[in-house]
């Protein structure tokens, strides 16, 4: 602390440089918010007029660049399907891992530290690498071997499909669920667990009957955050299941699907006439944003309620 004491501060009422630099950081904050507002406003203003019930409920039959007849129903369905299937896989694994880390794991053991390091690393793997992994592992390895076993080597699973895209996304969002669940488990007062144990419940019973119900909102938050992250991701599904165009909705786990995010990419780069497709492009972006933001917003609300409740408990 000697360093601090040796500094000399000018104790004037008004310090120009302090004012100047505080202003700069304030401007930086304002600038970031400005970017956010510009992006959102630009999309809302341009997209709102092009969005209609017809647009969100139509399957494009001929040419999805044609503003009058196109719709985004198959993309909405495809994106929803892939995140729902993803949730089925990622939530149990994520929650169980978080339970292990908070309830069972010895804090100092090597294995716990390795698990934590792996979770952190998984969170930082580039999304395109997940795509390669999905292609190399799920499709070329798991899928092909499944076909050998079940379908006499006829390709049913050894090709891009909804299930592989969902599993790839499940691996990608695993850290999101683990971290959120862990946070909510840690927030449960140890007294609750001790009381349960003291009354003769086993550890497993305590976790299932006392800890998990308490942690439910946190788990939901984690799930929603994972869904909102996954809903907007395009890179991991490029080689694992997304289709440029399909005339019908996906009906099976082995089908390919159309996707909102990928459709935004296709509309903005592949259109034969940029000016004509602009309105539907904006409308598609707005639908995607509404979907991810609505989910984010719900997550924030639940989290706020949980925190309030915890504060009241504490």
């Amino acid at each position: 602390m000697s360093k601090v004491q040796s500094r000399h501060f000018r104790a004037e009422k008004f310090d120009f440089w302090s004012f100047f630099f505080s202003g700069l950081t304030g401007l930086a904050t304002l600038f970031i918010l400005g970017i956010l507002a510009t992006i959102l406003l630009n999309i809302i203003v341009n997209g709102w007029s092009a969005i209609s019930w017809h647009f969100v409920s139509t399957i494009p039959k001929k040419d999805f660049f044609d503003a009058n007849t196109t719709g985004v129903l198959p993309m909405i369905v495809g994106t929803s399907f892939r995140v729902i299937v993803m949730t089925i896989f990622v939530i149990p694994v994520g929650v169980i891992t978080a339970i292990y880390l908070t309830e069972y794991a010895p804090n100092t053991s090597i294995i716990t530290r390795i698990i934590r390091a792996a979770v952190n690393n998984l969170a930082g793997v580039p999304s395109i690498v997940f795509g390669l992994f999905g292609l190399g592992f799920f499709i070329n390895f798991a899928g092909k071997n499944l076909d050998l076993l079940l379908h006499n080597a006829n390709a049913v699973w050894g090709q891009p499909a909804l299930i592989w895209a969902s599993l790839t996304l499940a691996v990608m969002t695993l850290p999101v669920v683990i971290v959120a669940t862990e946070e909510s488990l840690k927030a449960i007062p140890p007294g609750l667990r001790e009381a349960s144990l003291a009354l003769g419940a086993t550890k497993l019973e305590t976790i299932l009957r006392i800890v998990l119900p308490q942690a439910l909102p946190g788990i939901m938050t984690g799930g929603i955050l994972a869904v909102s992250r996954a809903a907007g991701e395009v890179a991991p599904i490029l080689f694992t299941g997304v289709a440029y165009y399909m005339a019908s909705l996906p009906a099976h786990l082995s089908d390919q699907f159309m996707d909102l995010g990928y459709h935004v990419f296709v509309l903005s780069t592949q259109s034969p006439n940029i000016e004509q497709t602009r309105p539907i492009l904006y409308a598609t972006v707005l639908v995607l944003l509404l979907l991810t933001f609505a989910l984010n917003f719900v997550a924030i609300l639940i989290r706020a309620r949980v925190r309030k409740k915890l504060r009241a408990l504490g």
Partner: protein
Amino acid sequence: MKKIATILAATAFAASTLAGNITVKGSDTLVILAQKWAEVYMGQHPDVKIQVSGGGSGIGFAALQSQTTDLCDASRKAKPAEIANCLKAFAARPTEYKVALDGLSVYVNPENSLKELTMAQVGDIFTGKIKNWKEVGGPDAPITIYSRENSSGTYEFFKEHVLKGKDFAASAQTMPGTAAIVQAVLKDKNGIGYGGAAYGGGSKLLSIKKTDASPAIEPTEANVESGTYPIWRHLYVYVNPALDKGEVAAYLNWIRSDDGQKYVKDIGYYPLPKNLRSN
């Protein structure tokens, strides 16, 4: 968990091909045309169901080889490695059908005074050997080149047939699609680009001379169809010969008939010349 198992089992059974069900997969260049054909054909034959999806010619060949698709759309010929993969998978070469023509034009800005170029000059411009418009009889201004993503079939075709396999100039700017090229050329009066003949969209389409001595040919519909305009390619459908029977064969035959070829122009491509059609 039980539910998932049931769904898995159900889909495993449903995935086996039903009679009267045709799947088409491959080139994104062809996907809209393929869908149009499928639509009309399904209207005429309500008992047939045709599923069309894109992804790229490479994806189409991979699917053909793994027998997950009946037909593979391709904007280029199959590569030897792809034919070899098919041989390994089903002990036969895929059968190739030409299904349409695509003419490629060279776009310049409407203000550019130039009207025609020879094939050799176009090649030299895109490889960067010719850097100024005055070298080909235009204004004294540097040339800006707009090219496509190297994964596009158009890029590959242009490189092989116009650049004669040489590399594009390092200064060539990569655009994500034909529309982006047209837009860039419209904004840049020194720009030059290439793409589907039907997608010129207000830019100037140059006439092309095959050699110095031959006449300059405009990229009009008649000239592309007759083959006098020198930059064009076939679009293909590939099929596993073992599957080329019944519904699939009937559909392929219809695509290449006068009736099927009527719809090609709507999408911006050109119908096959009479001698390549199926009737």
